[in-house]
């Protein structure tokens, strides 16, 4: 079901821009500069079994996912954050991390297309 929602939604950012045409571009640029390494870190700490660290990264990632309206991951990132905090690994966690990684990958490549060459 979640698969049918759009990949991301820039409405919130457009609203926040309050008429400043450059703002969304700057935000996309900032997002692309800082978020990929955070996703990498999240995946890496999961693989290394450092769930606490994984939860912390998810916590930090959460507002970016919300701001960019990446609906498919809003529940996922919170679930990862909670499990990390509780250092509780269940059978779904691996899938969730995988989903976050792949959706974010798609988001990055789509957003890159929006940037002027």
């Amino acid at each position: 079901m979640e698969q049918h929602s759009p990949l991301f939604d820039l409405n919130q950012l457009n609203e926040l821009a309050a008429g400043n045409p450059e703002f969304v571009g700057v935000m996309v640029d900032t997002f692309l500069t800082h978020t990929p390494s955070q996703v990498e870190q999240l995946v890496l700490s999961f693989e290394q079994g450092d769930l606490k660290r994984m939860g912390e990264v998810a916590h930090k990632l959460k507002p970016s996912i919300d701001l960019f309206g990446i609906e498919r991951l809003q529940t996922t990132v919170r679930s990862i954050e909670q499990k990390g905090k509780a250092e509780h690994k269940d059978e779904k966690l691996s899938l969730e991390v995988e989903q976050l990684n792949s959706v974010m990958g798609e988001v990055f490549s789509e957003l890159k297309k929006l940037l002027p060459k």
Partner: protein
Amino acid sequence: MAVLKVFIIEDNEVYAKALHHHLSLNPDNEVEVFHTGKSFLQALHTRPDMVTLDYSLPDTTGEEILKKIKEFDKEIPVVIVSGQEDIRTAVNLLREGAYDYIVKDENTRERLWNTVNHIRENVRLKDEIDRLREEVNIKYDFSSIKGNSEVLKKVFRLIEKAVMTNITVSIYGETGTGKEQVAKAIHYNSTYRKKPFVAVNMAAIPKDLIESELFGYEKGAFTGANQRRIGKFEEANNSTIFLDEIGELDLHLQAKLLRVLQEKEITRLGSNLPVKVNSRVIVATHRNLADEVKKGAFREDLYFRLLGLPIELPPLRERGNDIIILAKFFADEFCKDNQLPKIQISRAAQQKMLKYRWPGNVRELKAVMELGVVLSDDGMIEEEQLNFHSQDGIKDLIFEETSLRNYTQQIIKYYLDKYDHNVIKVAEILDVGKSTIYRMIKNKEIVLNAK
């Protein structure tokens, strides 16, 4: 009010940028972002007006930062903007003195905006209270425009007229006549009375700085402009701006001032965005501006623009018995301030004051009386305890343009009054014939005061 300096501590660069943008939508917020606790603490000494704080930081926790801020200055409001932490953390933070706790969700923007506005209002009120306290502490020397003379009553009538509208007022008068007191009297009796009275003395500010002082500047407008500063005109928005010694303004700035008065807007240095300002303007000068216009030192268009309601403050020497009223007032004030018993002024001392030219006017009288009190014995200020400071020499003697004959009459009259109408003694002192003096009295060229 002035700029609200907001520090954001947020390690998520994306979110930080969004917050920065959002809060900067209000041009009166000066927003700075810090991604780590360490970088924030290094900047804390520059004293933000408020801080927004993310709880989880890479190098420390929000709790630690909050503690450090409160140690530095417990008055700085700290708003926690963070993910949903457990309730205990939230309660603890509020107990430690956090101003508010805002959870990052779709309502953050609005809640934060409201909170910042509350804080701005609080800061403004606090400034206002400080200012009012100061006002109360400053003793308003309306007394220095106290008096019963006709010339002064005329001034009072004009002040009453001036307060009814926000017409520009131009005050002319010699130094020390109380031009600023008149301006304050107008301000504090006008509809703007609750706003600050903003005074700028053109003669006291270096020429190169007047423009930035009056109109403000943006960060980076010139070397050393490392933050935005609001000018006096903006400070006096919806209030009174008092431009003292307006005659000292150079021609280049006169043109700028004229534009501001015409357009009712200013542009900060380094900016191209005009800002609307609405201020009552009161100017003062000891110069005759009409003469300055003739000389080409003052722009005619600005002269007419500033003329508004002209109020001419008479010099002290023309206020007759007001001199004595004021002298007694200043002596009493000084005694009260220094816990001294009340003091009298001898008749001879009063006569001496009435005859003096008072080039420094009310300001000089105040100084003379204070020294008089200090030098006096037995609760009485005597003639010889009045020390006039004027060092003009012969100019002091020439107090009006008149004939030598008239001077002669006045000088003889002065000595006759001084020596109880003893013509022989006066003739001796002035080295003139007794008969000359008798003749002048007989011809009523000299009218003696009743003994």
